[in-house]
């Protein structure tokens, strides 16, 4: 393994131990509700939900090379779409599906203009951040009773409470239980992780990584990089929307904070801390950062954001490639030294 910022071996099929790892995760996921209490299940469920958002960013930034500072656009739109549709129609499953489709349609319009307009990378980051802030500010200003969609008041900065959980497909009078939400969020996170990893082995995945490495060369070879980038962007938008819809299902609540600067920056931070050269790194970082900021909150040091910021600064300086890749390199070199000594 070399000191690369981005993954260079994405096209190499995973080894046997990766499948073992995935199987272990799946087994762990299935048996955990039998041992864990409801509060741990709820805590882990939200981690899975946020992991999906991290995966969306990790794929888009680490493998396509697009730093969208506003993946929260789709996260927030997913949440709000589900809340508004489910409260209006009562058909939670259809609402859930629409809560993924609608943000992707918005992503299609947004992505078409920035990608086909050949907006440069840095502007794409800025524009996507501005768009998510526009959503936040707009929704914040909908407190009045005149802001109603169907029968649902948008409630401005108070958010929409009482969002129904998902009904069971076979019994629409029963709602998803806590362990049901746990299985759904965990299963979705695991499936998306495995799906994205395998997607990188396909011609589409390899071409997208080629575009990240050198878009000019790919175009000179005859690839229309715009269509590949747009497809990848929409895929990431869909994953972020899934995360947002699950967030609404998990918390029965959506609020403009889903779109705000804090949330948008956090997604970037997860990927920086976890590293851009693996998909799983940002997922691990999501857990660590969430746990750390919760812990900072409970020990009442005040200034949680400040301390979190300092720690992140230290991280970027000490582990510029991210935590997981750095650890992996250290482990590999330790093993090879050990191997040399013993032989």
């Amino acid at each position, binding site marked *: 393994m*070399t000191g*690369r910022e*981005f993954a*260079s071996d994405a*096209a190499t099929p995973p080894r046997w131990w990766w499948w073992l790892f995935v199987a272990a995760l799946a087994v762990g996921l299935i048996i955990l509700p039998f041992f864990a209490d409801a509060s741990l299940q709820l805590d882990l469920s939200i981690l899975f939900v946020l992991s999906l958002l991290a995966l969306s960013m990790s794929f888009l930034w680490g493998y396509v090379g697009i730093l969208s500072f506003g993946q929260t656009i789709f996260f927030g739109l997913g949440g709000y779409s589900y809340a508004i549709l489910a409260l209006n129609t009562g058909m939670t499953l259809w609402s859930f599906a629409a809560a993924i489709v609608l943000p992707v349609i918005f992503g299609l319009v947004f992505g078409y203009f920035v990608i086909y307009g050949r907006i440069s990378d840095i502007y794409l980051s800025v524009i996507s951040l501005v768009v998510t802030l526009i959503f936040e500010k707009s929704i914040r200003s909908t407190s009045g009773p005149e802001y109603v969609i169907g029968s649902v008041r948008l409630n401005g900065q108070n958010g929409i409470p009482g969002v129904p959980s998902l009904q069971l497909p076979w019994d629409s009078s029963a709602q998803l239980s806590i362990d049901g939400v746990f299985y759904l969020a965990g299963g979705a996170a695991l499936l998306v992780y495995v799906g994205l990893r395998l997607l990188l082995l396909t*011609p589409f995945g*390899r*071409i997208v*990584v*080629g575009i990240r*490495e*050198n878009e*000019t*060369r*790919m*175009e*000179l*070879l*005859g*690839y*229309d*990089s715009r269509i590949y980038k747009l497809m990848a962007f929409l895929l990431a938008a869909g994953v972020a929307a899934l995360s947002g819809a699950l967030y609404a299902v998990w918390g029965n609540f959506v609020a403009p904070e889903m779109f705000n600067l804090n949330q948008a920056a956090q997604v970037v931070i997860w990927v920086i801390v976890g590293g851009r050269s693996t998909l799983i790194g940002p997922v691990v970082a999501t857990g660590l950062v969430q746990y750390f900021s919760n812990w900072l909150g409970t020990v009442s040091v005040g200034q949680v954001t400040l301390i979190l910021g300092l720690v992140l600064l230290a991280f970027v300086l000490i582990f510029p490639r991210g935590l997981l890749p750095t650890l992996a390199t250290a482990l590999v070199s330790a093993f090879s030294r050990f191997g040399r000594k013993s032989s």
Partner: protein
Amino acid sequence: MSDGAPILETRGLERRFGGVAAVDGVNFSLRRGELRCLIGPNGAGKSTFFKMLSGQLRPTAGDILLDGQSIVGAQPHAIGRRGVGIKNQVPVVMNGLTVRENLWLAARARRRGTAIGSAIDSIVARLDLGPILERFVGELAHGQRQWVEIAMVVICEPTIVLLDEPTAGMSDEETGRTAELVRALNNSATVVVVEHDMQFIRQIARSVTVFHQGRILVEDSFENVVANPIVRDVYLGRRALT
């Protein structure tokens, strides 16, 4: 395989950067099957000219005709698909990927299925890339990266090959092999080479176009160009003496 019809033609081609005309009204014509060298001092507009031919830069004025059809304003990928392959002056390669993956991406641009593998195998054998196949392109010496880029161009089987300083950073032995490769390429494609290395040009060129200050100064056979006093004055004089 020259048959007289121009495969590529530019009319009054011009590219300005601010007030400076990097290419200033170039009328250039290339017959099918030709092997042409472009020479000229640094800043003469050769690389800008190449970038316009491949769609990487848009001309400010003038027209480019490929097989009689204008390609001005076409996207680079569309021009690539029409059979124009280019190696830029600075290698444009995927530094973070292996040589094999670079070749796969190039081969996949035109092929599907098992044809991809056999195309890679044949280019690897032809350019002797076997020993570096699993290395990362970013770790290779400049000359080797040039080879990888040339391989990526060749694997697409272009009808027009544009090579911008293909021998920069190469040893004499590598330069000789590049000259052989260029001549072999010319059996199936029309080739234009930008070079400074007179030794190399002597080995490959039949006709030479001299660029100077964004215009074509002279267009003639290699012997006549070298003997031309104006060319010696603007370009060769200084270089031939060193």
